[in-house]
């Protein structure tokens, strides 16, 4: 029987408008455990190391296999999904804080609706006439194009890239890397490119691409290894081209 334990320092906050405070918990070490499963142990017996019985820690979870994006938080100072943060890599104590830049709802639970707002702003969808069968197969796509596109389509809106971005935050209108990468994805789609110009115009507006400070934090923290800075670079060139076309009145 393994008698080791792991300590968790957790930044807590009861309500969106209340002051944060810290509490420390201890859980037994178990091999292959991750931060999410440790939080589950803690909530079952929410007692701090001082022996004080407290409310269970609130956080968001769902798939537990790093595909839904729900459980992102700041773990030892880095934004990442809690489910794939294995205790074995983290030592002790492990410091948990809510994902920064997003409003705290309670404890480690944050409001990420701004991600969706960004997707709306850049029209991150394909304009179709309606979701019915038109009895015609779509355009062919080469496996190479597929491979490039698929990378961007794995974005799970966890918000880690935005949390890490020095230009993104409540003080700024910057859309953040996730929405920019969606423009890359949609503009490469054979049907999506019909609205390429409009999306580029939105990237040229307030909160758009010019707000990117090229810190490259986003690509370093993305749990899905999405080449976010490549997308930003490609779109930078597309935007420049669009600026020229606009100047020449060529739309």
């Amino acid at each position, binding site marked *: 029987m393994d008698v080791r334990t792991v300590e968790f320092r957790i930044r807590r906050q*009861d309500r969106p408008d209340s002051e944060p405070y810290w509490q420390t918990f201890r859980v037994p070490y178990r091999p*292959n*455990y*991750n931060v*999410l*499963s440790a939080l589950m142990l803690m*909530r*079952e017996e*929410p007692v701090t190391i001082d022996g004080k019985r407290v*409310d*269970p820690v*609130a956080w*968001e*979870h*769902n*798939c*537990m*296999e*790093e*595909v*839904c*994006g*729900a459980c992102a938080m700041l773990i030892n100072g880095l934004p990442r999904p809690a489910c*794939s943060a*294995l205790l074995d890599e983290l030592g002790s104590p492990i410091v948990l804080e809510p994902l920064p830049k997003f409003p705290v*709802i*309670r404890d480690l639970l944050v409001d*990420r*609706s701004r991600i*969706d707002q960004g*997707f*709306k702003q850049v029209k*991150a*969808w*394909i*304009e*179709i006439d*309606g*979701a*019915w*069968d*038109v*009895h015609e*197969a*779509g355009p*062919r*796509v*080469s*496996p190479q194009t*597929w*491979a490039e596109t*698929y990378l961007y*389509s*794995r974005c*799970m809106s966890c918000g880690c890239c935005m949390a890490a971005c020095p230009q993104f935050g409540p003080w700024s209108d910057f859309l953040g890397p996730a929405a920019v990468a969606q423009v890359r*994805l*949609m503009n490469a*789609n054979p*049907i*999506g490119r019909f609205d390429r110009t409009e999306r580029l115009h939105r990237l040229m507006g307030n909160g758009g691409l010019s707000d990117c400070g090229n810190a490259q934090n986003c690509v370093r923290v993305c749990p899905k290894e999405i080449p976010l800075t490549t997308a930003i670079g490609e779109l930078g060139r597309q935007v420049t081209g669009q600026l020229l076309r606009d100047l020449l009145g060529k739309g």
Partner: protein
Amino acid sequence: MNAPRVILVGGGLGGLWAALRVAGAGFAVDLFSLFEVKRSHSVCAQGGINASLDHKGEGDSVHQHLVDTIKGGAYLANQPPVKSLCEDAPGLIRTYERIGVPFSRTPEGLLDQRLFGGVKNRRTCFAGASTGQQLLYGLDQQVRRLESLGRITKHEWWELLSIVKDGDGVCRGIVAMDLRSLAVQAFRADAVVLATGGLGQIYTPKTTCSTNATGAAASRVYQQGALFANAEFFQFHPTAMLGEDKTRLMTEAARGEGGRVWVPRSPGDTRPPKSIPERERFYFLEEWYPAYGNTVTRDVAARAIWKVTRELGLGLGGSDRVYLDLTHLDRTVVRTRLGAILQIYRKFRGVDPVEEPMEIFPAAHYAMGGLWVDFEKDPATGGMRRGSPRNHATNVPGLYACGECDYAYHGANRLGGNSLLSASYSGSVAGESVYTYLKGLNRSAQDTPQSFYDDEVERQQGINLRFMGADGGQNPYTLHRELGALMTTKVGVVRDNRELDAAYGQLQELETRFADLSLLESSAWANQTLAYARQVFDMVKLAQLMARSARQRDECRGAHFKPELELPIPAGKFAGDPEFEDYRTRWKANNSRWLKTTLAEYSADGPRLRYEQVDTSVLSPEEPRDYR
């Protein structure tokens, strides 16, 4: 009449398809979800979605898809809906393609297709090994488009507590709880569609399901009078990876792409797997089922693993685990087509499945059973009559169900690649049905007296107060863990009537312990324990139904297996052999008794079960399932 409003509950593939259909027809849609819809459990589906496009030159056809699905489900599904499902699958795929889903491609740029279990043709379209995620995101984008046009209103972070019925028993809305403010509120609607997903959390932690796949919503409407069908049919996925917190799915596509399942031939062989010579490996699926090999159906594979580990004692290190081996396959192909699961295995186990065989075992995965839904047969086609308001209607007028929370397409066992299909298709059909239902409706929910809503809100607030005020010693998390352990051991892959009787008793006892609950917290803001404890209670109610239904079905069919009642196919005998024909006669005799849908009606003193004839008008049950 006021402009009709429709409430959709659940934001996975079923709910989002229904939303697109209903909003597309011009009706106002209120979409409720426990969380942001793109985090719904559909996102976890990996391997693919079936449609007989025949892109691989194998002569695949709609008919073959139908035959595989019906036989895979041991004939228990009503056949007209399955026929329509298979016929409409290619159209659904084309629509997914149009909305931008990045399906994997053949070298010439067509949609690629791969092999899945229980079939012989490559029929499964896929997007790497994250197909569910890609389909869900495509729909999420379309719903966001309609949301930006004001045609869909999302209510994320709300939980359905109950439906509201008027004096005639017609569903006229819902009562839901804001998961942040805990406000309990009624919402009027002229029709309600439930797309609330599966219930794998009843088997926690040995399930591939998300923590929110509790079945609580389905349980709640069942307790309010909606019929529940085939509750005893629950799928255990043969290849999940070990985890103490959750067992993570390793897609069936791993076998479809050539992955092999094996154990060392001698028990207690502790050599590293790659040093064990070929002749000392037991590829039991290939030996026992040479015709289908590693791609037998999931119920068959799960039972084979059970037999190898529990009866023959050949599990790895004496455990329940066996190897799923990809190491002999071309690495580039594996990385391109299965990358997402390789990443999961690597991240959670620290081992690369391209280098070392994975260790896997069966885990709770998918509910074939669910809310009973109707269909209208079209005599002209033999399928469902398109647009009929009966399709996907529950027995409660105005209440529809689609996706995993219904029971319609998979019979006694679901084929891989058919869940993304049925979730999408049923959502689309439910949306169309609602449209017709609303056109025929002559009274608006706006005219329903307020008292019906007030009474239901009050009842739900009462339950919340009771849970919040409880001051006993019973911890909801512990109750859930006990539920999971009990269901896994007693209502699992292999079943026994004595154990099922014991399980039912224990589940009743578990229910009574809620009287002594302790909620651990009394916060009035974002109190997750309150919502959770209520879910656990409703899971226990559903588990009771599953145990009772399993107890009462005295036969083996698909995923429901009682060894003492097994009708084994005579070894080495095939159609035409007297022994096989004798077996066929006994199989048919058993069908005449048990080829029936289990219908359950809730009552305070336990589920009331009855049986209904299955519509086998498309493919008469003449050929037993045989994967040898």
